């Protein structure tokens, strides 16, 4: 089989994994040798027409798999064509792509072949060759096989920037039904293990840097390295009957328990060779988007889970409007908010004001009283905020907040594809670096 054909099969097999970020790792460069650099900021080198960021060469080592997960194109019972890269092929592709500035690095995953240890060993070999033989300084994300030998995991963590294990489905029962060989408990144990190692490495590094300062210029103590960019996971949305409330609950639990850098939501997307248990259907993209927004509100805007869910019905988020607007529409008594006086917490609740904008307003309030034109200069959408705020020269029209049709008035004009202020632009697809350019 030609390399090109393999690449097509093994990239196609990897495309359902949403976690392709390349940010938040240690700083490295190649001035002392090798190839590549990481500067903390993830870079998206291209965008596919699905709006997703292409930052890494995201491929599987092989799409052969002994497991039979119903949602997966690579499951043992699928009729898809199988291929496998040699270690050298992946290494070459990564370096060739990297030198041309196509990518930030490699995201390598694999179907499970022979045994978890064997598979993990192959993944680790690729990372080891890149790092040790070629001095590769770019980003490496390795998928981790939960059952693999701890020694292999330790080596994986030494080479990789990020490790990840997918929880796949929000509830253990759905996992049992759709991925019979996977064990939700085992996945959690593996995540806990990664967290423990990541924490230990971080502590050791912090200690080593303290010693270094104490020794004033002494040789840099070698602290063990373990996945400096942390761990992430992915949850498939829409393959089982879990509600949004359950999904958000599970994801915040995962963040808190295992210090995940990101929980990716991935709308279950039809695959060419679907299993009878999961016939193809349009992916719930809007739902996925709303989940990300809700997750953002929970983690950075001081919302509680019941508050986020209060905007929707029956444990599901409102698909038509973003969860912040949905909350505001149901809590009209809390508005209008005076932009010149309200505290940060309340400003963060105003639909159309992002966290960065709120901080700018608060800083600027020291020297100015805000009029609507001032807000416009902070790139706030006046149409969006107008019903919910008062400013020096603005008060929402009498009774606006009491109108039954307020919802239709504030509905995004350009339909559901609107970019709104909760999420930094394009969050779904980009690494976490964006606040810099985000419209917030």
């Amino acid at each position, binding site marked *: 089989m030609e390399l090109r054909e393999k*690449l097509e099969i093994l990239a196609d097999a990897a495309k359902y994994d949403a976690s392709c970020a390349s940010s938040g790792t240690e700083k490295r460069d190649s001035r002392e040798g090798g190839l590549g650099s990481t500067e903390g900021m993830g870079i998206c080198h291209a965008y596919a027409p699905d709006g*997703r960021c292409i930052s890494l060469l995201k491929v599987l080592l092989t799409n052969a798999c002994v497991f039979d997960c119903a949602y997966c194109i690579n499951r043992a019972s699928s009729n898809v064509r199988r291929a496998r890269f040699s270690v050298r092929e992946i290494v070459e592709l990564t370096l060739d792509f990297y030198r041309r500035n196509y990518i930030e690095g490699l995201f390598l995953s694999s179907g499970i072949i022979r045994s978890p240890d064997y598979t993990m060993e192959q993944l680790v070999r690729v990372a080891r060759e890149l790092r040790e033989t070629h001095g590769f300084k770019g980003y490496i994300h390795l998928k981790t096989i939960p059952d693999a030998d701890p020694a292999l995991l330790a080596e994986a963590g030494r080479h990789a920037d990020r490790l990840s294990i997918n929880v796949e489905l929000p509830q253990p029962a759905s996992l049992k039904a759709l991925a019979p060989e996977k064990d939700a408990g085992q996945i959690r144990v593996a995540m*806990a293990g990664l967290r423990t190692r990541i924490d230990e490495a971080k502590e050791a590094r912090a200690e080593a840097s303290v010693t270094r300062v104490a020794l004033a210029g002494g040789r840099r103590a070698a602290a063990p390295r373990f996945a400096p960019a942390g761990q992430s996971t992915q949850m498939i949305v829409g393959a089982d009957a879990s509600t949004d409330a359950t999904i958000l609950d599970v994801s915040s639990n995962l963040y808190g328990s295992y210090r995940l850098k990101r929980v990716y939501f991935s709308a279950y997307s039809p695959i060419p060779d679907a299993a009878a248990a999961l016939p193809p259907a349009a992916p719930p993209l809007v739902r996925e988007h709303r989940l990300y927004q809700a997750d953002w509100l929970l983690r950075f805007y001081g919302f509680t889970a019941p508050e986020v869910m209060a905007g929707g019905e029956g444990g599901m988020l409102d698909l038509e409007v973003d969860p912040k607007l949905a909350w505001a529409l149901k809590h009209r008594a809390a508005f209008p908010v005076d932009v010149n006086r309200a505290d940060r917490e309340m400003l963060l609740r105003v639909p159309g004001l992002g966290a960065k904008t709120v901080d700018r307003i608060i800083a600027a309030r020291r020297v*100015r009283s805000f009029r609507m034109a001032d807000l416009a200069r902070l790139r706030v959408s006046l149409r969006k905020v107008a019903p919910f705020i008062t400013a020096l020269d603005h008060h929402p029209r009498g009774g606006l907040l009491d109108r039954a049709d307020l919802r239709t008035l504030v509905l995004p004009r350009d339909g559901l594809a609107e*970019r709104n202020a909760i999420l930094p632009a394009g969050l779904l697809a980009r690494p976490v670096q964006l606040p810099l350019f985000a419209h917030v």
Partner: protein
Amino acid sequence: MYSLRLAAPDDFDGWREAARGLVMAGIPPEEVDWLVEGDPVPLFGGGAPPAPPADALQPRAPRDFPELARLVCRHRDPARFTLLHGLLHRLQRERGLLDDAADPAVARANAMARAVRRDAHKMHAFLRFREVRVEDGAPAAPLPPPSPIAVPNDPAPARNARSVALALRDLGRLEEAGEAEPLPEAPPVIAPAPDSRFVAWFEPEHHILRAEAGFFVRRFAMLRWSILTPELSAHWDGQEVAFGPGARRADAPAEDAAEGLWRAYFASIFNPARLKPDAMRAEMPKKYWRNLPEAQDIPRLMAEAPKRVAEMVARGATPPAERRQRTVHLPAHLRAPQPEAPAGVEAVMPADLLTETLDFPEAQAALRRDLLARNDLPPWVANATQPVMGEGPQHPLLMFIGEQPGDEEDLKGQPFVGPAGRLWNKALEEAGVSRGEAYVTNAVKHFKFTPTGKRRLHQSPDAGDITFYRPFLLREIGFVQPRLIVTLGATALRAVSGRAMPVTKLRGSLLRDPEGRPFYPTVHPSYLLRLPDPASKAREYDRFVEDLGQAAATARGLP
């Protein structure tokens, strides 16, 4: 009117030097024309501004101003120097000016800085190198216009062609199942040919090349490369960056052997079922497309997408393939579940009888399995990582029963490894009991907590939780067979005795459980950790050590 000439369009240092003088001389921004080397001399241009008075104060600016000004200087807006001069001028009186993002001038400067940063980021992202062979002695840098790079008429096949060829070897035989080990590896020589140079053509919006060359040096220090832009070119040969004149698109190589693979990757990684062209265009505006080799496939991919999805949906589910996978060496618990044993087998054989016949490690493993197999676990268990089972020898002198695993225990799957556990360990040692004489476990086997963002707050188990886990604890006591049980805290006391009892009143006395087994209650070590003042902490700790010592002495005296 005065005029000032800067050395380059992004000459921040020149601007700063000049602007300082202007502010010290009290010359307002409207009276200065800023020119850049190469600009035509204006018809009514003024002369050089006067030198500031000798006693003028150095202008002051907040710490973040230079960074802002540096970025703004790179913007292509001809008014940038005037704008910055105006800001520096006002900053002398309005110290907090930069905090007022709604001020028109500040807002404009911020917008310009943002545009420059975005441009730089897009350059890091969308610049594409093409590899060429440069003959020995070919000009490196700086290069004479108009054709700064010697592009051979008949470019030697780039090194990548070799790697492609390598990969074209027929691997089919072994790859059928995708599982076979690919051919033996060739020796690892993966370096670009020594005479290759990586050349990129890029069209930045602002004057950013000089500032951003460092990024490419850090990333590609070991390669030789050139970046050509219409206004300036940068060349790196391993030592330093040389800047030369601008170039034309035709000066850069027209293709690269790796682009075919890259385009194939781009097309395959795209999921047609998630078509979101607006999101793509927002991040990768069309103006960049002409220099991105992969972008030429976008129209086709978009046009084909709806049909591909419709076909997938129309086809529906396909019958499962016959499994072609080879022998699988999977541990038993990873294999697909086998048909269940006939129901009721467990029921006819009481749990105790079952464990009697098992040896100790098997009994422990069976306990864990049976716990996990329960489908009526308390709902909060879904948030815990794993059940944390007991640890220690069979027939120990003392069997310690705590409340429930904590955060660290939950992550590691071992009892008494958190802060309270460490304190207990220390006290145990001071009481003269070796770890080999103690078995530790918890009344409740899962970590119950309230999630609060980043931390998991311990939550005490309630009566229902204790009741649920009690049969498992009793079974555990049954096969551990300790000389004496020590309950730590109220939960364990309740679990062992079967009812709520006050620890503080009963601690230190020898009691019997409903089965007649002796047990000895004391406090939980986490209670010691919670005491606020050091004096009572020390006192209570001593008492705890005393309790443990007494328990050990009692146990030694027991039959």
